[in-house]
């Protein structure tokens, strides 16, 4: 019995170092049209002085809220989806 538990402990220790693999179930490629549309929205906001959300997210959000009413419908929907309702 003692041998069995020693063996079990060894096997458990081995398992803790088992490789954890990532195998995606599906590939999801974003269409060029969608990429263009999304970039267009951020360009629209950048042109209004909002910058990039990766540079200063607080400034971006504040600016985006100020500029919201003047954005295209597509851009408004995208901003609402990402950053919540105004």
């Amino acid at each position, binding site marked *: 019995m003692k041998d*069995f538990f020693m063996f079990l402990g060894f*096997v458990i220790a081995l398992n803790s170092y088992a*490789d954890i*693999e990532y195998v995606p179930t599906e590939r999801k490629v974003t269409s060029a049209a969608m990429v263009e549309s*999304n970039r267009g929205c951020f360009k629209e906001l950048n042109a209004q002085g909002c910058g990039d959300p990766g540079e200063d997210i607080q*400034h971006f959000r504040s600016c985006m809220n100020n*500029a919201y009413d003047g954005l295209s419908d597509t851009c408004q929907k995208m901003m609402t*989806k990402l950053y919540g309702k105004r």
Partner: protein
Amino acid sequence: MKYKMMAMMLTLSLLSVSCDKSGGSSSEESTESTTTVTGDTGPDTGNGTTDSGSGPGGTTTVPPPTSTVPQLALSLGGNITLYSFTTAQTEKYNDAVAIVKKVVATEEFRSRVLNYTYSGAKQFANNNGRTNAQVYQSILDAAETLKPAKNNIIDIGVKLYYEANSVVGWTNGSITYINVNTKFFNSFDANEVAGNLFHEWLHKLGYGHDSAATAKRPYSVPYAIGYMIRDIGSDFL
């Protein structure tokens, strides 16, 4: 009897352990140096954030919405060491890290994590006993199992290899880096790389999933949240 039980345990354990992955060479010529991509702390050798100061002096008096995204989600940093990446590979990984930060800073990400449901309840599979809110907080705390400080920084190394199988990447509990298969990395968009990065990083936070492709596996923390990063990240391509 004793040996029968030992043989049975050995068989069971072999079925649950993945094969060890040996590294392969990258398909591109690579340098021998390492590149560290940092975020909000340390020298800015990669995609750092900058403080651009206050907003514009607009005439519209629209009050900013009450943000439910916590400050830690806005300040998540990255201390990511890239081993032997080419310049092009580094650029792609920088883009992926930038996407991760942008996605974590969104209300959409927060909402998706908090409201995630599995098996009729708001929970992830293989959640280590944590509620969705606790899972979200653990992401913001960024305390890896092997580097347990709650520093709000993604601390991880990344190594590339090539293998002609279906594995995009892998890691295990004894190493602080992740391994990424260039068979996929080279053709992935930055948001897909971001999803894989986050998936592997969630393993570093201690979350696991079934080894086999069970019905439960996509609902595990690494898979479910990795897909969120990828999907929301497509808006930032």
